């Protein structure tokens, strides 16, 4: 059996009926990674010992008749973005800076997944320090899109999306600062959820933009993503921004959209750069929702135009601050042989960080400097107020907003190389991080021109993530559950 291509319910019922053991799930998942990942390159590190040890624990509980006490992810093959600490693994953020770093501790989101019974398969590729939208800036080679290996998987959580799309894991975790969960989810045709800021603890996840970062799951079904969210969400005393949410994210998932009001934003749908195939796909999704009984309403977000510039002020400033911790002394890359500490700092940070990381650090430093701060940083935080108010006003009339995730489907490697052009592709995802709302991508078929997956973005008011999950479940009903990418659907590996 190909467990990585199964959903949580199928694994759970198979384990309960003793059709297979958790150990078989782990062994077969590892064999599939062996067979498939040479092509996809989603994994930076595979952790067979940890997966098998956890599987034996799950099997022991089943043998002892304690199946019902196992968590919602019991025996589920799961993998984690490389910016999440798991004790004893490398947590490199796909950077030479942390190439040899071995985590002495475990992130809360990772620990909660494992406590819920997940079998940890390993760590997943990403853009270096999550700076990027293609996974091309990984210091360890890019990940390929399983739907077409000549195209990018999106980013920064490209490995997390590709692993699920290629059937190497049932659930993966990623992080989203400006679209880094939703955009690769769209490009790889899987369900990808960035919950409201504060739903999941960020403790142990290497910080990029601390007021924007949020952890969330990838899966091939909305229900699986909701189960994963149940496992990882909630208050953590080690992250003061984590909130005491005791939401069952699977509740009401199948309630349908009849009577719901769903917003469409003209500023998004008429934006320059939106490809016709993505526009058509989103319009088609709106039509399907209307047929299912939802009311589609136009809503205005008048300040959303400024979101990209606000983001590219706030995020680099926070990154500049967060990345100052890499000092070549306590951990991280050190260029040896310098006679002065300053010389060691400068050489280590120049060689340890890749070009995009260096650019963002430099940009953040400039934007926070005297005089410049008042021109960009403070106004960016004022614009954040306006964008947040725009969304609050929209939510007075709608329960959820439907939008594109990205202006285009997955593009070819190297197609966009200019940083400013690349940043502009984040138009649809960024304002949600600025406002702190929840947003997610759900597959709505293939683009008519590219024949690559298109994701519809659903955006919900803060801490009403259920709204978007419910609409996503309705779209899933209409379009079918996300598939393993065709080239990998029939790959058989192991026993």
């Amino acid at each position, binding site marked *: 059996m190909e467990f990585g291509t199964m959903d949580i319910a199928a694994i759970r019922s198979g384990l309960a009926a003793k059709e297979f053991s958790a150990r078989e799930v782990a062994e077969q998942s590892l064999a599939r990674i062996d067979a498939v990942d040479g092509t996809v390159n989603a994994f930076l590190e595979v952790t067979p010992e940890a997966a098998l040890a956890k599987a034996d624990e799950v099997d022991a509980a089943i043998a002892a008749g304690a199946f019902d006490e196992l968590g919602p992810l019991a025996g589920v093959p799961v993998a984690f973005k490389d910016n999440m600490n798991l004790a004893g693994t490398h947590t490199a953020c796909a950077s030479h800076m942390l190439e040899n770093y071995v985590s002495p501790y475990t992130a809360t989101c990772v620990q909660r997944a494992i406590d819920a019974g997940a079998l940890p398969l390993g760590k997943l590729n990403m853009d270096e320090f999550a700076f990027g939208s293609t996974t091309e800036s990984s210091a360890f080679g890019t990940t390929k899109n399983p739907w077409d290996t000549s195209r990018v998987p999106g980013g920064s959580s490209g490995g997390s999306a590709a692993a699920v799309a290629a059937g190497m894991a049932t659930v993966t975790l990623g992080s989203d600062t400006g679209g880094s969960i939703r955009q690769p989810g769209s490009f790889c045709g899987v369900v990808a959820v960035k919950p409201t800021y504060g739903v999941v603890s960020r403790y142990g996840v290497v910080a990029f933009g601390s007021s924007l970062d949020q952890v969330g799951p990838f899966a091939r079904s909305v229900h699986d993503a909701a189960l994963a969210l149940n496992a990882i969400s909630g208050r953590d005393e080690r992250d003061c921004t984590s909130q005491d949410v005791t939401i069952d994210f699977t509740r009401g998932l199948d309630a349908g959209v009849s009577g719901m009001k769903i917003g469409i934003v003209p500023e998004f749908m008429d934006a320059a750069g939106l490809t016709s195939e993505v526009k058509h796909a989103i319009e088609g999704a709106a039509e399907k929702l209307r047929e299912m009984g939802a009311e589609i309403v136009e809503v205005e977000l008048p300040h959303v135009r400024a979101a990209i510039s606000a983001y590219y002020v706030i995020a680099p400033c926070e990154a500049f601050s967060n990345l100052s911790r890499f000092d070549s002394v306590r951990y991280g890359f050190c260029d040896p042989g310098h006679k002065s500490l300053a010389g060691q700092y400068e050489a280590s940070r*120049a060689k340890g960080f890749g070009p995009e990381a260096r650019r963002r650090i430099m940009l953040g430093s400039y934007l926070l400097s005297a005089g410049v701060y008042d021109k960009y940083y403070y106004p960016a935080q004022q614009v954040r107020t306006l964008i947040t108010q725009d969304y609050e006003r929209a939510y007075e009339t709608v329960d959820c907003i439907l939008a594109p995730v990205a202006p285009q489907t997955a593009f070819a490697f190297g197609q966009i190389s200019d940083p400013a052009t690349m940043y*502009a592709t984040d138009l649809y995802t960024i304002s949600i991080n600025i406002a702190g709302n929840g947003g997610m991508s759900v597959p709505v078929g293939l683009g008519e021109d590219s024949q690559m997956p298109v994701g519809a973005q659903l955006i919900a008011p803060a801490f009403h993530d259920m709204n978007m999950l419910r609409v996503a479940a309705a779209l899933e009903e209409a379009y079918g559950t996300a598939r393993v990418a065709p080239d990998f659907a029939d790959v058989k590996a192991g026993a």
Partner: protein
Amino acid sequence: MTEHVTEKDVRDIAEYCRIGLADSEIPQMTADLNAIIDELAPITEYDLTGVEPTFHPIGDLSNVMREDVEGQSFTQEEALSNAPAQQDGSFLIPSILGGGEA
């Protein structure tokens, strides 16, 4: 493209960030930063008089206090486990007093 930063500015920023850019990298970094800063223009075009800033999406953040009781933390060995250089239970760095590179 407007020149927001000069090559001299970029050298100063690099020094402040402790990133040792080679001379050959300065022109490209200068061009990249100017292009990106150009794109930030919309931020400067709004009338923001009287608009309060939002520095964080969770507005009512407060310090979290706990009882001052001993908890689990890293051992010295764990804290040093990723150090590029260590000696006698401490992080080892180049001398910071005198004898340095210019």
